[in-house]
């Protein structure tokens, strides 16, 4: 069993309620932070912990906090990003659904450190019942003096508000999220100014992911140095991974980042192997936006070294032969899956979610979907593959926000690693409508069921 810092108590009956959470030692860390620590020392511990943002970009949380502007007389805000809409990702939902008070405790400590008297949780609109759970938890925490005015007699006021979105992946991008929180369309803003200077209502704002803010609790509890000892290198602490696709045990797992990809997929403690005795074909290890990897490059790097479930190892080899940790959405494809079709569903997703502000993203995502549809339905030409490659290159790096890149990367990686599967579709138009390309040479060379 690996170390559990976030989900340790997830299975305690009734942990969702204040009474049980408190009985299990909950809010003791918040008490310590508010009563015994200074703002500076809290930020310092988070810096020392090496905690990197869990929303996808992996930016060091302590450093982000230290950027927040503190102009005299202007309120500051902490916003918790619970938009969680990256396909393959469902870890924040798990945390909020089962441990709402852990998130609230993390938010309270973080709000205190940042000086946010009104903190918002921006939750995707579809998680309506999760929003209800959070609201209930807020009522309980307020009743017990952990939220409201003059908390624990420290003079610090803090209220946490739940704000439901209404269906838009782009609102996970922090400036689009802020626009949405202001009651507008979710169009990302041009940066600078960064939210830390001018964010919500043009006030200094920090936006952090749910898991990042929950991790503040164990960090303050054990101290930044101790936290940093868990994991490896710059991948400190634990990470939640939501595993899905063709595995025996889909679900949310907390890992310390020293486990190998192979163990994560095949051990019974985690994914439990590929479902139905099939073989592993490919994996998207960090949410739909990150490059897909064929089995052989997933389990071992191009240099033939074991690949591990951490930021550095997953991106070993760059985009040529590696991928990314991303949001921790771990999607497994078995031998029966068609890469063209999978890529098509993702292209459709990004076309649907593009906010339309920049033409390379708006037009490019539409074109990519159309061409992939053409190839998938047996009408493709060889030149379509080059056209796809060309379009994704023109999107990448030419847009206001990273959604453009996020749409381009999956297509690029699919062509990079599975070009022969695309060609097979084109050369076997009729056959491709009734059967699959299969495994070919991509298969995981290690685990072949008897």
């Amino acid at each position, binding site marked *: 069993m690996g170390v559990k810092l976030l989900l340790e108590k997830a299975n305690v009956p009734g942990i969702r309620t204040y009474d049980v959470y408190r009985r299990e030692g909950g809010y003791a860390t918040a008490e310590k932070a508010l009563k015994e620590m200074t703002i500076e020392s809290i930020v310092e511990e988070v810096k020392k912990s090496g905690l990197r943002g869990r929303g996808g970009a992996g930016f060091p949380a302590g450093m982000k906090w230290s950027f927040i502007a503190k102009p005299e007389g202007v309120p500051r805000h902490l916003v918790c990003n619970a938009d969680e809409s990256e396909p393959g990702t469902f870890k924040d939902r798990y945390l909020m659904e089962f441990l709402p008070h852990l998130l609230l405790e993390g938010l309270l400590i973080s709000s205190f450190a940042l000086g946010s008297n009104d903190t918002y949780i921006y939750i995707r609109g579809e998680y309506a019942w999760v929003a209800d759970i959070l609201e209930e938890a807020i009522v309980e925490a307020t009743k017990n003096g952990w939220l409201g005015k003059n908390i624990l007699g420290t003079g610090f006021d803090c209220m946490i508000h739940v704000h439901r979105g209404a269906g838009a*992946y782009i609102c996970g991008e922090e400036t689009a999220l802020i626009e949405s929180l202001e009651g507008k369309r979710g169009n990302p803003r041009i940066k600078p100014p960064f939210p830390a200077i001018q964010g919500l209502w043009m006030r200094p704002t920090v936006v952090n992911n749910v898991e990042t803010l929950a991790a503040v609790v164990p960090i303050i509890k054990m101290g930044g140095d101790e936290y940093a000892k868990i994991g490896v290198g710059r991948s400190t602490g634990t990470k939640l991974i939501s595993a899905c696709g063709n595995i025996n045990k*889909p679900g949310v797992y907390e890992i310390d980042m020293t486990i190998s990809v192979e163990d994560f997929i095949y051990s019974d403690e985690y994914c439990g192997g590929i479902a139905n005795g099939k073989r592993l074909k490919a994996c998207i290890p960090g949410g739909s936006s990150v490059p897909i990897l064929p089995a052989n490059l997933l389990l071992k790097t191009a240099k033939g070294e074991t690949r591990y479930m951490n930021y550095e190892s997953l991106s070993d080899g760059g985009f040529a032969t590696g991928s990314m940790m991303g949001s921790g959405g771990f*999607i497994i494809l078995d031998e029966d899956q068609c890469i063209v079709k999978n890529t098509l*569903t993702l292209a*459709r997703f990004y076309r649907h979610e593009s906010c339309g502000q920049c033409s390379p993203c708006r037009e490019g995502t539409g074109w990519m979907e159309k061409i992939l549809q053409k190839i998938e339905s047996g009408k493709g030409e060889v030149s379509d593959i080059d056209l796809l490659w060309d379009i994704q290159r023109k999107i990448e790096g030419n847009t206001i926000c990273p959604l453009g890149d996020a749409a381009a990367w999956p297509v690029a990686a699919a062509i990079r690693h599975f070009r022969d599967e695309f060609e097979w579709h084109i050369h076997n138009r009729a056959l491709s409508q009734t059967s699959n390309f299969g495994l070919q040479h991509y298969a995981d060379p290690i685990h072949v069921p008897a």
Partner: protein
Amino acid sequence: MSLQFNNEQMTEFKRLVARYPEGKQKSALLPVLHLAQDSFGGWLPTEAMDYVAILLNIEPIEVYEVATFYSMYNLKPVGKFVFEVCQTGPCMISGSENIITYIQTQLGIQPGETTKDGIFTLKLVECLGACGYAPMMQVGKIYREHLTKEKVDAIIAEYRMQVAAQN
């Protein structure tokens, strides 16, 4: 004006607006549109959007802009129960296509359509954050996960019974 929040809905409206600072009441627009949609039959006629504009003291265009941007707001009438089935990659590789086809045959409608009796609407949606519990769909506030043909049958029967009980 005929569309109006009743007392209970008005209390909820005030609770939502109170979350934002003075003068920033426009921030309540998304939550208030959810409330309006839930209160006025599952969709947002222009009249409802105009009403929300008045309540929040903003221009109607500011409401239309937002209502048309977000996928959860219905701008056309929908059935009593909307089946929003996820069709994105992770669900697709876990068998969502068969489930979608099965629902289409059982209800006799295509995605985007409503059954003649006005009970069911079928919508295909993108990832709902339930990829590990696929195939899945959202019906109202609830997620229906690990769908099989048998489960779909049972769910349809359950909602039909609910409607029959109300009549």
